[in-house]
């Protein structure tokens, strides 16, 4: 079975400095694979070495079983398309940018055939940029610009798309929109996508598989949930004052405990009350007798009510901020 991308004994780095060696990994056809790891682990270097933007120090990269090194740059451009971190701020409009994706297929004049035009227009529609087709790049928001680069990559019609930190400058809605676009491309278009990303939570939600790169140049591959259950994610991203919450799947700041709280109630109201208390440094307890105080949450006609029980005294609050404010003062 030939994989769209396979790396064998790959060694990457700069000059004498080896960042990672003996890498043996592969990407399955049609999967969305996220490369995650702490800053400076070498994610960009790995992607650049795979796409031969940077010289690898050893080993080999195979595309569908073919040695990448033996391909010309033009052949390679028909196999891998790239979305990079550098910002392209230009008067080029979206349509012209996407049309450059067809350059590996055109003669030196760059003349577009009907087939090329169809590819360009489809890529623009696919990424939802039809309305912006004649807009110059410098007028686009970061999210739109990133989508335009993805449209360019789509027009390039390569089986494999590599993206280096495509979500870096995006806010959460844009980030999730972009990632779900990529996911759709793997499902609907059969593209194989490898992207580096430092937003761990998003990666764990969206990736079919993950390459987890640690600071020492080791890469662990697997489905996200398995890597968490094995404790790999927690280990690599461990830091002082930071704890990976296995329940929620996200990181939490650790603070020295102020007091133990027992919470009664259920549903959404309870979850967000817990978050607020944790943020302020309170600790939860399962046993009521251990707790310094008790909070019970009730909801009446979409309105929440909090009852604080402390030293056998009861007090009612109609908003979370009032409760927290009272706790902070006393």
């Amino acid at each position, binding site marked *: 079975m030939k994989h769209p991308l396979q790396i064998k004994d790959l060694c990457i780095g700069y000059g004498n400095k080896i960042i990672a060696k003996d890498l043996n990994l592969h990407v399955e056809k049609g999967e969305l694979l996220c490369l995650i790891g702490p800053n400076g682990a070498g994610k960009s270097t790995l992607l650049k070495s795979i796409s031969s933007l940077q010289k690898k120090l050893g080993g080999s990269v195979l595309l569908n079983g073919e040695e990448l090194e033996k391909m010309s740059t033009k052949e390679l451009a028909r196999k891998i398309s790239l979305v990079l971190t550098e910002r392209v701020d*230009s*008067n080029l409009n979206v349509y*012209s940018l996407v049309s450059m994706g067809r350059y590996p297929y055109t003669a030196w004049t760059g003349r577009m055939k009907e087939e090329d035009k169809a590819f360009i227009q489809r890529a623009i529609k696919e990424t939802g940029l039809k309305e912006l087709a004649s807009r110059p790049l410098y007028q686009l928001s970061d999210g739109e610009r990133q989508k335009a680069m993805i449209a360019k990559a789509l027009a390039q019609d390569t089986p494999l798309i590599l993206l280096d930190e495509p979500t870096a400058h995006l806010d959460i809605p844009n980030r999730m929109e972009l990632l779900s676009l990529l996911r759709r491309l793997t499902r609907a278009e059969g593209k194989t996508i490898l992207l580096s990303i430092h937003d761990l939570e998003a990666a764990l939600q969206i990736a079919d598989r993950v390459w987890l790169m640690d600071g020492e140049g080791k890469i662990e591959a697997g489905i996200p949930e398995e890597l968490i259950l094995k404790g790999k994610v927690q280990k690599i991203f461990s830091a002082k004052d930071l704890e990976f919450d296995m329940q929620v799947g996200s990181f939490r700041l650790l603070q020295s405990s102020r007091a133990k709280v027992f919470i009664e109630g259920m549903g959404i109201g309870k979850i967000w009350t817990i978050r607020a208390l944790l943020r302020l440094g309170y600790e939860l307890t399962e046993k009521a007798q251990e707790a310094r105080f008790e909070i019970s949450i009730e909801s009446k006609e979409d309105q929440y009510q909090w009852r604080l029980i402390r030293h056998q005294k009861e007090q009612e609050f109609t908003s979370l901020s009032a409760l927290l404010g009272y706790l902070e003062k006393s």
Partner: protein
Amino acid sequence: MSKTDSNTWPGLGPKWGLILALFVLLFVFFILDLLLGSVQISIGDVWASLWGSDSAPRVERNIIQKIRLPKALTAILVGAGLSVGGLQMQTLFRNPLAGPSVLGISSGASLGVALLMFVLGGSGAIWGFANLEISGSSLLVLAASLGAALIFFLILLLSYRIRDNVVLLILGIMMGFITSSLVSIWQYFSDPGLIQDYLIWTFGSLGGVSREKLLILSICVGIGVFIAFLLSKALNMLLLGENYARGLGLHIQQTRIWIILSTSLLTGSIVGFCGPIGFIGIAVPHLTRSLFNTSDHRILIPTSCLIGAIIMLGCDLIAQLPGYSIALPINAVTALIGAPVVIVVILKRRNLQRSF
């Protein structure tokens, strides 16, 4: 795909109406350039001499055929060549202020010329500039081209080490200072006659190109522009930055070398024949981009040739100071025209990086 649907997509073609208008303007300026000068010649005589007919008086015919026609053609070649050279520099460095003269390439050509004069200085009387024969001028062009290429290669070597374009630009300017100081040293020890020849050369002149030299110049400019045109697609890809360009299948190293070759040939030959003519190389590409509102080099290269030629003819018209028998140095006029163009484009765009 239906016809109506394809109409909703932005077209990639140039503005043909504008191109036609520019051709008309070029023609008008060309005729005006032949018509105006210290000697009054009627349009009928100009037309007749242009087609080699004997109906015009001999003196007039000689003025048109031996002086004004070569000068007008030189203006067209110089305008087109410098504009294309500047365009390539701006795209390669992705720097809006790049151009042959800013990066010290013209100074390199000057150094080449100064060195040549130094070597031939012993026989200065024979090799006086005004009466250089065709062999001499080929030497001059060669010296200017080699000088330009030398500086360009230095800039290019530095550009591999330095990613920051502003730093590179400053280095280019420094390189210009170094070559100028070498030229000053040469001047300090040189014969006053030679210095004067050199000074006059630096003022720039479209008039020193005879018909024979015109052939060499047009071959050099023709090859330079042709290479640039073949590079259109590559230059487009460079707009996205080197990494994206490589990802689209561009061979960066080869492309850089071809751009150097083309620009050195253009700048070197033009500076050699006409002196270091400034500002056209910076101003025309900006003007063209803003007139055609495109970044596509397949459109930009031919159209900046056109606009460059028009502006150079215009500068020559101004330099002749119609009605007077004296002419201004062409270099002074190009700066007077070019600097305001750059200022206007900057004020209009606010951010030149976005004009690419």
